[in-house]
């Protein structure tokens, strides 16, 4: 079990290398599709830099893969509130991402006040708070406050959505 998980962990970092490689190929293919009009005023053209970047990404991908296969390992970032001794807690992350996605889906249709409430309330619950009612009130208050704050303070009209006419 342990050897399997350590093996998988090693492979997880190969995913980074794969991502870098894919990004490199993508940048290369995209640049390749550009047209370079002959121009005296622009001898470099739009392709040169993308080609350099693509090359850099691919080289990094290969070197990283070699590094990982040889046992190299990226140091996960620490911090004041970070405890690296336990693995990533997906039970927190996935609901957080869920609340985030729900907000994306709702914001244009239902408006910021509703989608923002969903986002904050969902996030607080995902992070382990259990004061459902109090959190609900805080979420609504925060969304309303930012809605009016942005409108009156910054002159940005966030979408009112379903509550159009009420707000």
């Amino acid at each position, binding site marked *: 079990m342990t050897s399997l998980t350590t093996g998988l962990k090693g492979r997880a970092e190969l995913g980074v290398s794969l991502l870098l490689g894919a990004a490199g190929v993508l*940048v290369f293919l995209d640049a390749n599709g550009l047209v370079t009009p002959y121009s005296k005023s622009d001898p470099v*053209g*739009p392709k040169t830099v993308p080609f350099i970047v693509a090359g850099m990404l691919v080289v990094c991908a290969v070197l990283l893969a070699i590094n990982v296969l040889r046992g190299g390992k990226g140091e*996960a970032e620490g911090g004041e*509130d*970070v405890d690296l001794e336990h693995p990533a807690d997906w039970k927190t992350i996935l609901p957080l991402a869920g609340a985030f996605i729900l907000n994306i*889906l709702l914001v244009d249709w239902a408006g910021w006040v509703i989608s923002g409430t969903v986002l904050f309330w969902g996030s607080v619950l995902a992070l*382990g708070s259990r004061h459902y009612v109090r959190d609900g009130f805080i979420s609504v208050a925060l969304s309303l406050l930012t809605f009016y704050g942005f409108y009156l303070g910054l002159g940005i009209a966030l979408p009112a959505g379903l509550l159009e006419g009420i707000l």
Partner: protein
Amino acid sequence: MDVWSSLMDGFATALTPMNFMYAVIGVILGTAVGVLPGLGPAMTVALLLPVTYALEPTSAFIMFAGIYYGGMYGGSTTSILLNTPGESSSVVTAIEGNKMAKAGRAAQALATAAIGSFVAGTIGTALLAVCAPIVVKFAVSLGAPSYFAIMVLALLAVTAVLGSSRLRGFASLGLGLAIGLVGMDSVTGQRRLTFGQPLLADGLDIVVVAVAIFAVGEALWVAAHLRRTPLHAIPVGQPWMGRSDWKRSWKPWLRGTAFGFPFGALPAGGAEIPTFLSYVTEKRLSKHPEEFGKGAIEGVAGPEAANNAAAAGTLTPMLALGLPTNATAAVMLAAFTSYGIQPGPQLFTSQGPLVWALIASLFIGNFLLLIINLPLAPMWAKLLQLPRPYLYAGILFFATLGAYSVNLQAFDLVILLVLGALGFMMRRFGLPVLPLILGVILGPRIEGQLRKTLQLSAGDPAGLWSEPIAVGIYVIIGLILLWPFAYKLIRRNRPKNSPLLPANSGAADYSD
């Protein structure tokens, strides 16, 4: 241009009631985020970028400057009282500072940190005011080839010198440059990396990228790894210092400043190296070397001063050349772009009043920070008991709000999530985020200079080294890139020495 009279004008601007209020808001916010776990000045400035739509640039930058300096003060408070430094630059402060606090000398540790920060910050800002115009005078004489070389140097130096793995640094830089490529090519008008998506034609908004990487990525990362056992904050009264503490502190403050400013001002400076050098120096010079490791006040005074002087130093290349070398400076540079202000040597002439008001506000902010940090330290420490769900949900909420308010497009939120996930992955696998953000910001400008240079030389690559300064810089770049290989050779030919740096300092990484 007379530095003194420009600076006085700057003070006049910065002390208008409105701007003074933003300075106060900035330092309070900065101290708070410095103390709060999981938040830093770079993230805070990123989250506040939307205010640039409504605020005068001067007010906005005065507030950002307050956050920048305030973050340092707040960060030292946490590292002394908790021994969990949030940023690499306060690692060294934590070594002696926390020992002092445990020995019942928290008040003295906080006092020497705050007063030392004030001294170093003030001297550093004065040096900034003197040096920046000189750098500008030198920089305006540079042509595109030299400017191109300097930008490449800054990018490579930050990537190669900071952080523990150069390879991962370059990987991050590559991703940043790729993100910077997205959008319309400014010369030919062709779309690059937009995949037929019209919303990408204007490129990725730097606000969205900064918020995604610094706020969303960080919040998700911390949320996935929350500490499960609560810590104790060492209780503390009002900070104060006795006579002997003053006597032992003032020289380390000055020496720390002397280390910090030049390192901060270098393209790859950062605060880690000078804080560490200051620590080692104080240990060597101290009359009480036996106290080191048990809570020596010199070991707090010196590094803390070096940290703040480096912060001031960092602003020199940022304001004079448009080159950010740390995360907060990078986000502040993004704010310049967001105002349509072109950063670079011309900034001092085109935006003179703004720049001098910013520098003046740094003096003011430093003074305000001393006032709010000395008597109120116990109150700031209380912030550590804030329930996390609200803290991290709040970060996500304001990140979303900020990114959405740029264009009012839900599509930007999709990008926010994707890049946030990228930020999470980078933290998981040890890819530093600073090279990425620099790549996004500097990439397009470097490409512009490159094209300008070769346009001048009619396509002849020799145009790249047509100026002596450019040649000099390429030599430095070569040295930086080849250094690890040379170092390996030297080490191989010599018997193994015992390592000079303590293993837990985090500074040992630079030997690579």
